[in-house]
């Protein structure tokens, strides 16, 4: 990481013992942090019959990735109606809409003066912090009675309830608040002169937004996309209460599918857990740099 190297040179250094102490501390924490995951990983490599007899943490007779294949199959993860695909159908449209709407809002409230500017921002931010289960019941009844044409969903329920659209809507409604907050803070750091200059050139509002402001917000958008991906991907509350068709449920329900009413194979669940963790981990690692820089400016330049 080149950035960390330059940082090493630039920042005031440690004394030598302090430096060793720091490394020792950071490494110790890192090791402790890895233990649960490594434990689950180890468990995922072992066959059921063996751990049933000897316990998870014993010397292995055999290690294999067989559980992964089984978990993938039994958890119903693959295919167009598998849990991975369902998650993708929910998460990607949600993130696109969330980022679009929140950058609309952020643009409007941060680049223009409105009478209700702050009020709106207050409502949005506060809304995002409400507990999900508190709004569940009325929302459920609402979804239950709002007709929804079958050609716009793959469930044919006739109502919004039970469709992925219902889940997407609540994700968008909820998360737009947080993203508006971060993005509006971010946009405030962009010099106003850019707008003024654009105005002199006769640029319309949509042109200013799409061609000038939005491209400058890329780091913040990347950071938010990373965070939102993690959150929406991992949601299981809304998915379970709003989607009654098992074939509509997202990846988080795969664990429950493996969980077992009767026979419970922890190694299989561990393998399932590892598979489920991979996409979010990959997204984080891929966008780690943007993630940090995007959040940086948004959050601390209020």
């Amino acid at each position, binding site marked *: 990481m080149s950035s960390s190297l330059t940082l090493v040179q630039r920042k005031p250094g440690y004394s030598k013992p302090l430096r060793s102490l720091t490394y020792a501390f950071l490494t110790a924490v890192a090791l402790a942090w890895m233990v649960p995951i490594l434990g689950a990983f180890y468990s995922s490599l072992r066959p059921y019959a063996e751990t049933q007899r000897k316990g998870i943490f014993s010397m292995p007779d055999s290690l294999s990735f067989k559980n992964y294949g089984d978990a993938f199959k039994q958890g119903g993860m693959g295919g167009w109606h598998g849990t991975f695909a369902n998650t993708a159908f929910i998460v990607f449209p949600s993130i696109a809409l969330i980022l679009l709407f929140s950058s609309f809002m952020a643009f409007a409230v941060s680049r223009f003066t409105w009478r209700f500017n702050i009020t709106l921002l207050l409502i949005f931010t506060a809304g995002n912090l409400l507990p999900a289960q508190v709004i569940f019941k009325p929302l*459920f009844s609402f979804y*239950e009675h709002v007709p929804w044409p079958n050609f716009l969903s793959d469930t044919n329920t006739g109502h919004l*309830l039970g469709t992925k659209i219902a889940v997407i809507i609540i994700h968008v409604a909820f998360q737009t608040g947080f993203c508006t907050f971060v993005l509006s803070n971010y946009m405030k750091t962009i010099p106003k002169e850019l707008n003024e200059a654009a105005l002199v050139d006769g640029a319309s509002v949509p042109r200013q937004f799409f061609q000038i402001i939005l491209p400058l917000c890329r780091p913040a958008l990347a950071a938010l996309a990373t965070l939102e991906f993690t959150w929406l991907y991992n949601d299981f509350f809304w998915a379970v209460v709003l989607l009654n*068709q*098992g074939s509509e449920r997202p990846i988080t*329900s795969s664990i429950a599918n493996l*969980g077992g009413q009767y026979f419970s194979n922890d190694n299989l669940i561990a393998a399932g857990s590892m598979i489920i963790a991979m996409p979010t981990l990959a997204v984080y690692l891929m966008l780690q740099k943007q993630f940090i820089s995007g959040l940086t400016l948004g959050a601390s330049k209020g």
Partner: protein
Amino acid sequence: MSGTTEQSPSPRDVGFSINRRQVLIGGAGAASAAALLAACGSDAKTTPATTGGATGGTTAGTTAATSGAAAGGEVTFGSNYSDAKPKEAMQAAIDSTGLKVKVNTTDHNSYQGNITNYLAQPDDVLCWFAGYRMRFFADKGLVGDISDVWSKFTDFGDSFKTASTGNDGKQYFVPLYYYPWAVHYRKSVFAEKGYKVPTNKAELVALATKMQADGLIPFAYANDGKWPVQGTFDILNMRVNGYKYHVDLLAGKEKWTDPKTKAVFTAWAELLPFHQTNANGRTWQEAATSLEKKEAGMYYLGTFVATNSKDQAYLDDLDFFNFPALDDKIGADALDAPIDGFMMAAKPKNIEGAKALLAGLGTAKAVDAFLKIEGASVAANGKADTSGYNAIQKKSQELVSKAKNIAQFLDRDTSPDFVSNVIGDAFAAFVADPTQVDTILKGIEDKKSTYLS
């Protein structure tokens, strides 16, 4: 037991699925004609009911298949059989009806917790349990009256009909199978140590004491999820106070603070030292494993205890006995034997298809197909083929048929709301600290009126 269960995938793959394909191909041709018939008039409604399940026995399956085609279209089916083996078994039962069924499987636990939400938008036919748990939804108008399907059933005993009947006297449920709760043990351990199956309280206590002396935990015990110890309460209440009191208590007619109720907890506290400690943090699967590993001598649980193991030698070694009488005047003729089966949505999209499917699932053929793979429970249908039963299944059937009174299970015999919000915590608190019994019982009684009124 199940040499058959272990190898079950292959016969199904070869037999049933081919069978199903043939039926589907045949059915597809008949479907359009059937739709025309259905369009002709109101007698279409009676068609499936007259044919489906009318004759019972093995022939009924084929009849049901015909009627399924007559009912036309796809039936949707909500299943909570999410484990690999039960899922396959349920599919086999459905396939045996020959109907075109779209199965919606959701995981067992969230299906149950989410049932009210699910019933806002149910499939045509759905899996559920008998008892208060079924009658509650019937009262609320969330499930459909299937008395006409029942009028054609001839294979079920009266007790099953009663268990399928709502408070309004109509039928809302089709039973598939049941399983008793009993004290499980390993025959080899009993033989090796010279233990005898106890028939009364003194013998039970003597046996448990001896096991302790031999370094065994007398009873394996678990309460993760807060439902397993409800079984203990049920059986103790039925042994101490009898079936009638048990049912009345759960219906809210008796008081939890009554000395008779407290006597149950006194008995429970007496037996607790013979149980595995720290039950609240243990899954029943873990407790079952300690029975398998011979760390524990006995385990009071439903016969599904066997489903946790794949070791055939252990399964052959597994046996059970009825929980002994604690009071000679009360005896030991009541027990928990929950019935699982199906309900119909209040307004199914395909009502003819739904009823045809329920009729088909009520046949001996369907339950035979199910049990052939599941291999642990007992068929509700009286004409089911019992020749393939393993020892446990045979014994289960015998035990239940001898019992005078059958309870479902605590969370099926009273408001599930009350159980999940009050009883679960209360019993867990009792198991953790039996000395708090008075506070705990008062807490239950105070909260009861919120749920049962």
